[in-house]
């Protein structure tokens, strides 16, 4: 099992270089991280995966961007919008993660979308920066949405990923701290471990239905 932070934004988006983020993440207990708009590689034993986020785009643009990025080996994420958009994105081949479910409208994620995410092996991302940085109603709403989403996760067992959205190494949190933060949304330790491995689950090609033994 690999412990992965599913979204960090290194320099020039943030103030920390990707190598420094990798160093700090390793010290905090991570094995790999997805660095947005950064080439894949490894540093000091940390695996760095390349990530792409498609946001504020129409469905036509999403299809075009996913088609372009599909062969690059990057982890492709799309920002959630309304329910119809989310269903269309989840059924799109090549999309790995649906992000920003806490910022989308109230009915954006329902039981049908959850079932589709499980069938298509698309992960739903939990943005921890909201739990860490937000205060008051914004954090309360995020906790409510995540709790709601996790009831679907327990029922349909779609993959879940955890992202710090770190633009600086100061935004990274240790694995133990993330476990504590996830307890706020009703996630137990085994649930957090599964979520840390969510990226591995969506990037690993599916097992063939038929296996040739000899």
């Amino acid at each position, binding site marked *: 099992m690999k412990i992965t932070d599913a979204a960090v934004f290194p*320099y*020039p988006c943030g*103030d*920390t*270089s990707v*190598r*420094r983020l990798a*160093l700090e993440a390793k010290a905090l207990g991570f094995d790999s991280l997805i660095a947005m708009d950064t080439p894949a590689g490894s*540093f*000091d034993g940390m695996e760095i995966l390349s990530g792409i986020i498609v946001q504020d785009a129409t469905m036509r643009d999403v299809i075009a961007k996913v088609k372009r990025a599909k062969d690059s080996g990057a982890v492709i994420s799309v920002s959630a919008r309304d329910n119809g958009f989310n269903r269309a994105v989840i059924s799109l081949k090549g999309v790995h993660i649906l992000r920003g479910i806490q910022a989308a409208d109230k009915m954006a994620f329902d039981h049908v979308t959850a079932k589709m995410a499980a069938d298509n092996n698309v992960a739903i991302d939990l943005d921890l920066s909201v*739990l*860490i*940085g937000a*205060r*008051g109603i914004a*954090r309360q709403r995020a906790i409510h949405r995540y709790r709601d989403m996790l009831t679907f996760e327990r029922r349909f067992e779609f993959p879940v990923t955890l992202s710090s959205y770190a633009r*600086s*190494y*100061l*935004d*990274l*949190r*240790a694995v*133990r*701290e993330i476990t*504590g*933060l996830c*307890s*706020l949304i009703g996630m137990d330790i085994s649930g957090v471990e599964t979520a840390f491995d969510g990226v591995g689950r969506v990037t690993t090609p599916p097992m063939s239905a038929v296996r040739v033994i000899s």
Partner: protein
Amino acid sequence: MSPRPPTLRENRRYILVRVEPAGTVIDQKELYYTISDAVTSLWGDAAAGVIMQAVVAAEHGHVIIRCRRGTEKELAIALSTVTACRDVRLALRIVAASGTIESLRERIRAGKPVTEPASEIVTGSAGTGGAEPGECVFAEKPFLIAQCNGQKVDVIEKGFKNAHRLFLTRSDLEN
């Protein structure tokens, strides 16, 4: 007022926290208000009254925070939501929890990092672009080296305007 006998005192625990970035000047009172705000925001006044957090010491880039025994977990979660103290960005990394302040002080003494002089990294790096000691070049811009610790190098953009702090590694400066 006479002190309470030991059996009637509340049991307390002390949490050792490392303040990052290294070299951040910590005002104990300001940090107390920041932590108090984080605890109250997350758990509410009732729980904050039970936790009874207090900053008891701030030394060598570390802070010792007191809480009531049994509430360490709640305090630790609240500490992970601290992102700034008086508009200064920082992160609090929990190092250890103990029943005595003295054992945490020993821990600080044992884990004291060795900070190198800024001139050393400049002489050892290839990509300094002829920069003076204590300076370096990254992304074709001149920077002043603020902190070096092993692979980690913190730099500040040169000039009085837009003096951003960047967090890099030696490899970044060499490439």
